[in-house]
């Protein structure tokens, strides 16, 4: 996007970006250094030795996968509906969804708990996936709707003139065009679901249903946290999301490049 015709301006750009990135590195650096204090790499070994370590990752993947599937589908459909389809009083519905964004999590626990028990959802992954979806959907719809607003109506007009019905338009036109935003949504939902702490803590009570955010708990004492090990757990936990982010970016860019060659 920035045009760098001369060698000099390219170097300047590179240097400026590097300097701009340094403040981001300081806390990360502090975190990694801290995780190696005390017992050094032994901290990481201790984290890997937590019983059920692999199981935690699997469970987090289940929660994340389930959340992404539900949220992605619901968001695309809802954004399509809000943006391109006719619906009386749709702004009212839109703002009702937005209102759901405003509640702090801690206020939700008691009513959600009663709900989960009565619907026999305690101890199932649904008790976590559904609230996560409920909390994320207004936010994803908000950003996706704006994005889809930016896609010209003319496209949909043309397809409708061709005789395509809404479903066809949705699958063949909207989904491909909305792919960049879809990647953003998937990444953000993945991060939120992966980092979910309070909901899994309260609802996934069975021993074999722990998620990765519970790893640092092993090293929290009543007062005296074992901070180096907590940070080691955090580093290990963060790696899959970073890998996912980088991979998705590459996939998406490759996809965009292929689409552009007509």
């Amino acid at each position, binding site marked *: 996007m920035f045009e760098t015709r001369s060698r000099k301006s390219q170097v300047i750009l590179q240097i400026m970006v590097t300097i701009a990135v340094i403040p981001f*590195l300081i806390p990360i650096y502090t975190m990694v250094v801290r995780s190696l204090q005390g017992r050094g790499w032994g901290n990481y070994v201790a984290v890997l030795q937590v019983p059920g370590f692999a199981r935690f990752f699997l469970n987090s993947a289940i929660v994340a996968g389930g959340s992404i599937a539900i949220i992605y589908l619901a968001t695309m459909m809802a954004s399509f509906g809000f943006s391109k389809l006719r619906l009386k009083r749709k702004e009212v519905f839109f703002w009702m*969804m937005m209102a759901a964004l405003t509640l702090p999590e*801690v*206020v939700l626990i008691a009513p959600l708990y009663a709900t989960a028990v009565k619907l026999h959802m305690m101890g199932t992954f649904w008790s976590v996936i559904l609230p996560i979806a409920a909390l994320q959907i207004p936010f994803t719809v908000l950003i996706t709707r704006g994005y889809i607003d930016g896609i010209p109506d003319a496209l949909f007009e043309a397809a409708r003139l061709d005789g395509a019905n809404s479903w066809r338009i949705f699958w063949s036109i909207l989904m491909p065009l909305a792919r960049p935003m879809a990647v953003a949504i998937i990444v953000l939902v993945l991060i939120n679901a992966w980092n979910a702490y309070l909901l899994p803590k309260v609802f996934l009570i069975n021993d074999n249903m722990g998620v990765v955010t519970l790893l640092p708990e092993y090293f929290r004492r009543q007062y005296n946290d074992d901070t180096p090990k907590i940070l080691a757990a*955090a580093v290990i936990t963060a790696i899959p999301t970073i890998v996912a982010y980088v991979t998705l970016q590459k996939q998406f860019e490759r996809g965009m490049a292929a689409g552009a060659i007509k």
Partner: protein
Amino acid sequence: MAISDKTIDAVGLSLAGRRGGRFAMTARTVPGGLKWILPGFIVSVGLIYYSIIYSGYLSFFDWGGGRSQMVPVGFDNYVQAFHDPVLWMALRNTIAYFVVVFVVQVVGAILFAAAMHSKIYLSNVYKVIIVIPVVVAPAIMAPAHIQVWQTNGTVNAILNGLGLHSLSQGWLGQSTTSLMVIILVSSWGSIGFGFILYYAAMGQIVPEVLEAARIDGAGNLRILFSVVLPMVRPVTISLAILNFISALKLFDNVWLITQGGPAHSSEFLGTMIYAETAGTQRNLGYAAALSMILLVVAVATAVTIQSRSKEKTRKPKLSKSTRELSNV
């Protein structure tokens, strides 16, 4: 049924053409939008609204939780809230926080996104670094932030190293600077989030548009803020709304770094609500009242932001000469 060539041409044309469907306000076509929004609506509204209604109901009581008595108090909780100077401090902090973090986020994220779309080495590495604050939960980064800002921490070490001893102070422990620390820490984290969205949105911008502007003689920054920024407007609006709601709800960063102190100087509505549900002598009714206030302020502001942005796009931007012509 196959999509006709006409449609494909139309798609191709508009990809090459100007973005900004708002300018072509054709009538929305298809009725029956309800069934599209229904799944999302049921999941989010169904689950959350029970909690909202429950909180609304609860705000008219004094209640300690569990089996302790629920004492009906009418509007007392709300009256108490509005008379509480800490609430007004929290609202002031929220606005200051919102303004700074939003501006930093938009400017920083757009600059980074633009840079990453340019020819630059190691872009993957930079992308990861910028996004890490978004990926790692605040609870985990907090000890690192404390270490950076504490009295014998990184910031003061740098200041001392640069010879600015007089500026070195107890950033976390002073009521005058605690809010500033929270704002800076959050700005740091917010850029990565904005980056993810802007990077995606900018990926859709057709190079021809930028080429055209460049041929007209616009420089890099000019292009960025006069051409690109309007094109990614929807993202900016969404960020404004999300930032405001986050500012109101703000909890993690504040609680983990300053706990709203010292002396409530960095208090936010989110921390007030948490403190009220967390204490041993809590009033869940009061917490619910605060949540209701939060909800009303959030929705009102979000509606305002959204509707004012819609107004701006409805008025077509005519150039001065065109306007003069039409007055003849």
